[in-house]
């Protein structure tokens, strides 16, 4: 982890009608760190991700990526600069086999530029790269799993597929929207090394999580949101000992 700021959010606000989903949220993320975002249900975590990655436009505020303003850029353009995301509700391409799911990010201009392979040869070099990425993320190459339709995969694999879709873009920043939720303990145990490996490779991760124990194992810093406001930020022990955080969220829970 270095001290260069890769992503900087300044005063992001978003209201849906009368509901203020986000109020003046500012934070910086350093290159190569794992930054956790926690908060009770409806505190604006996913809205924050949507605002930063361009899926909805913030009412106010600015997002800077490596010093360049990317506020209100279209989502695909933000993804092309290297900021990608997973979806809380998994969105694989159900009608395609798992490995063909990765052809889409591999076909994008960013992957074409960064990828070392020759684009779309007769025998589909992208297919090879796709299977490689899937193997890296835990789909056994020789099993039938990578070749099955995405709709027939179990949840754990679909979550991995979401992450694989991000990895195929060779991103600088990945927003993980609850990658651990809905997984069994053993599936989470399989996911954590993947997250750590991505960090080792220098990818900055921003993780929205409800599974705090698993998050605190990997996160360098944590921010807490409540009703669209940032209430605490820092090392996880500081955050969970913060009085406002306890009141808002952890209250009775023992961590």
């Amino acid at each position, binding site marked *: 982890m270095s001290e260069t700021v890769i992503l900087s959010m300044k005063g992001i606000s978003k209201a849906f009608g009368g509901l203020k989903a986000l109020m003046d949220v500012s934070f910086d993320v350093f290159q190569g760190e794992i930054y956790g975002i926690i908060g009770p249900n409806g505190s604006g975590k996913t809205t924050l991700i949507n605002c930063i*990655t361009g*899926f909805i436009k913030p009412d106010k505020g600015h997002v800077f990526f490596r010093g360049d303003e990317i506020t209100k850029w*279209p*989502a*695909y*353009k933000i*993804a*092309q600069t290297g900021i*990608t*995301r997973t*979806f809380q509700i998994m*969105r*694989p*391409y*159900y*009608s*395609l086999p798992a490995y*063909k*799911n990765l*052809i*889409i*990010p*591999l*076909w*994008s*201009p*960013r*992957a074409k530029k960064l990828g070392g392979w020759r684009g*779309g040869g007769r025998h*589909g070099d*992208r297919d090879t790269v796709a299977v490689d990425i899937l193997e890296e993320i835990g789909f056994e190459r020789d099993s039938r799993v990578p070749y099955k339709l995405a709709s027939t995969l179990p949840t754990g694999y679909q979550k991995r597929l979401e992450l694989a*879709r*991000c990895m*195929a*873009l060779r991103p600088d920043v990945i927003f993980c929207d609850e990658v651990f939720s809905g997984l069994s303990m053993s599936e989470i145990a399989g996911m954590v090394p993947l997250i750590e490996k991505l960090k080792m490779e220098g990818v900055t991760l921003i993780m929205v999580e409800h599974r705090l124990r698993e998050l605190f194992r990997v996160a360098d810093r944590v921010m807490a949101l409540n009703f669209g406001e940032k209430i605490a930020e820092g090392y996880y022990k500081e955050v969970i000992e913060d009085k406002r955080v306890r009141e808002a969220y952890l209250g009775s829970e023992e961590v």
Partner: protein
Amino acid sequence: MKRKERIDRGLKVRTEGHYAISSLEEIGYLVGPRLLLILGVLLLPIILELAPYWKRVVNIMCVYAVLALAFDFLANYVGLVCLGGALFIGVGGYLAAIFNVYLSMPFWLSIPLATISGAFLCTLLILPCLPLRGVYFAIVTLMYPILISRIIEAFNILGGTNGISGVDSLPGEYVEEYTIIIVMLVALFAMRRLVNQDMGLVLRAVKDNDQSVRASGINVTHMKSIAVFIASLMGCFGGAYLAHLYMWAGLSLFALDFSIIPIAAVVMGGGGTLVGAVIGCFILVPLSEFLRFFGTFRIVIYCALLTGFIVFKSEGIMVYATRKYHQFERWVKV
């Protein structure tokens, strides 16, 4: 209790991989259906020397087949239910007539030029509605042909209600027939290839989940407009061809038939199979011609047949036939 079980035929399993083909039987199994279609369609004009009236029907049938291909591609692979078949035909037809009559270009220039410029024009028209989805997109594309034909009528431009007459005919019956047959076959196999290429996969992904495509750094509107361009390329060719076939371009090129019959054909043939669209047209168009004998009653028979198909065999002929070809069924005790 008994239950029906479906099992892949041994022949299918053997011919599936890259390594399989080792006997004439296996080659025949793979190539047979394709060859049957290609040769059958290519021989059609020669066979129909016996019944010359039906030659014209074959031409129109092929135009509808191209349109149905475009519809199937957009609806089942890109997720755009486009009822703009009449728009494509009309724009292509009028442009070909303009190029041929007003600018006196020969047919071999006016048809390709009308195809390409028409496709650009149609894509440009549809571009603003691309963010729409589902039934909203369908409605807008359905309105366009009506809109344009009313404009032509109201302002009395481009020949008004009389249309543009005096378009050159194509030289010779065989040129007429084989132009559209070959274009139809090329379009069919090109589309089949395209949807399995990497670009085709991206288009299919747009149908499955456009948010995910966006998060993968791909401009969804751009991809959709490429798909519309490809589809309108096929449709506009059909229109340009029809203008030269009828030696006339008029308001009937914007008729709703061109939007509706392809849909019926796709439903009948099996959505998402591409070949199904062609087969559906090969049944529906001659049928409606055949039913002319019954006068206005033909619509009743036509509708009853279609309803029957949708209710009892909604999967479509092609899906059903493929299953029968590849698998056999047997009853097993449970």
